[in-house]
């Protein structure tokens, strides 16, 4: 299996340098090593997905990029600058936003206030208003519910709000943590269609972490497979979708049953 086509950093300025480059990242929870030397690239304007079962370390990887966790080793290079170990608000200011697993909206604040908080690091009012219009153009339901408390939205609407709130930053890259989590297959399709439009129309660069390999590989240009804190596969999304391991362990049950929801969560880790 082909591994990452990492370019050494001395080639900074090289046309092919990715917007986000991760090299040999290691992150610990106390003595537990959750990320075990991960390297990956997210080129500008592309969608990259990281697939992995429960506990593979996907969320930890995103948290390390966002500065919520500090890595023990390795580098995270964004747009030519090393950002590992910086404070979360410094990282957000660079245009990196994480849409967290399980939405994590501010439940007692209105939809509008939640969106305003997405633009917390911005101060240009015109720019914020424009970002809000962009969000409403992708998620018209949010415009209808502007004054509703976020905690009273349905799960799908909360996911849309979480993505919309992330868009308020006008980010250069979005890190999406299992956007399909807890959604019906139909709603998952709908959300991923909006993500595709965001990528194609607005040129949004995305790193999407997923257990639902079918929708994620359909959206992504490139995919990685993560297992117990390591990248074990890296290939174009089409080739991954066609690969036998993925077929068997991630797609094999994709058409089975209609219960959708957390089906991927139940799959046992493969090795």
């Amino acid at each position, binding site marked *: 299996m082909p591994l990452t086509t990492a370019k050494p950093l001395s080639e900074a300025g090289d046309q092919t340098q990715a917007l986000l480059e991760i090299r040999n990242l290691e992150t610990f929870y106390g003595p537990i090593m959750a990320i075990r030397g991960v390297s990956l690239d997210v080129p500008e304007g592309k969608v990259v997905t990281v697939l992995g079962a429960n506990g593979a370390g996907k969320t930890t990887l995103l948290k390390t990029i966002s500065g919520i966790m500090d890595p023990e080793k390795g580098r995270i290079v964004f747009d030519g600058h090393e950002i590992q170990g910086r404070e979360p608000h410094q990282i957000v200011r660079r245009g990196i936003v994480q849409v967290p697993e399980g939405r994590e*909206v501010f439940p007692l604040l209105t939809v509008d206030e939640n969106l305003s908080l997405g633009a917390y690091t911005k101060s240009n009012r015109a720019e914020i208003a424009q970002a809000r219009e962009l969000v409403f153009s992708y998620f018209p339901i949010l415009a209808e519910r502007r004054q509703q408390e976020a905690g009273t939205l349905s799960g799908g609407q909360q996911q849309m709000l979480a993505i919309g709130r992330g868009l308020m930053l006008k980010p250069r890259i979005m890190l999406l943590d299992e956007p399909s989590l807890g959604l019906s297959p139909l709603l998952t399709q709908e959300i991923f269609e909006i993500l595709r439009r965001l990528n194609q129309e607005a040129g949004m660069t995305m790193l999407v972490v997923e257990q639902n390999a079918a929708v994620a590989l359909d959206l992504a240009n490139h995919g990685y497979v993560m297992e117990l804190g390591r990248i074990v596969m890296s290939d174009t999304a089409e080739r991954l979708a066609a690969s036998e391991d993925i077929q068997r362990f991630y797609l094999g049950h994709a058409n089975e049953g209609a219960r959708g929801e957390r089906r991927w969560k139940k799959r046992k880790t493969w090795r």
Partner: protein
Amino acid sequence: MEILQLLLSGLANGCVYGLIALGFVLIYKATEAVNFAQGDFMMLGAFVMIGLVNPQFMGLSFWLAVPLALLIMGALGYLFDITILRQLFGQNQIAIVILTIALGFVIRFVAGVIWGHEPLNLHSPLALGDVRFGEVVLSLADIAVIVVTVILTMLLWQFFQRTKLGLAMQAASQNQMAAYYMGIPVKRVQGAVWALAAAVACIAGILYASKGAVDVSAGFIGIKAFAAAVIGGFGSLPGALMGGLIVGVIEPFASRYLPPGYSQIAPYALLIIVLVFRPHGLFAQVRTKKV
């Protein structure tokens, strides 16, 4: 008419309780810890004001001293958070609570050393004396306290609804992790919450000292304010104020109409009744989970 008199003094005391209770709730919402020194912050605020204004100390003009006192108390609250509490980050909440109890002792000790243990009066323009309608005596200071509290409440409301920092404080208290994801510097915002709580306590102290003499044990009314916060629903800012008013109003009526001694326990009796019938308080912002 006597009722009006009792109501007025009850409401004025209730405003002070309510403002201290507000500080409890602010800090609880931001850090999930209860600051048991909140009453002592009130007392310290009163003494800082006395130190700035009274002729035997610095003798500054009252209106110059107010912003100075707020600034000093706000800075103390902020510094306490970033220098001492930050060290306990990740520790059990109990550790933080015990630390705040210790802080209360320290504040009382230091205030005693600086200002002595005798009760002192603040030279306050709000201490306006009484007006008399026949046999009814209304205290103008009580009315001033109520007016100031109403204005402060409206300002705080505007602050939380309209300003970026106010919104960030709400966000960080509702979902701290998500606040980090939004690029909110959560720790600084929490420091600002401590500053705000200390400044509100300072205003409570100025009002308290405008109504009568203060000594270093004045902070113990924080216990009543704590009961008020629980009655209102520990997590609701309007609830804290309402709880304060309820406790404040109950006291004078209880001491007027109940046998001697009962008035002391009236607020706590109410506390127990509320906890039995509405365990989340009267004005709690919780969606109660069934089961």
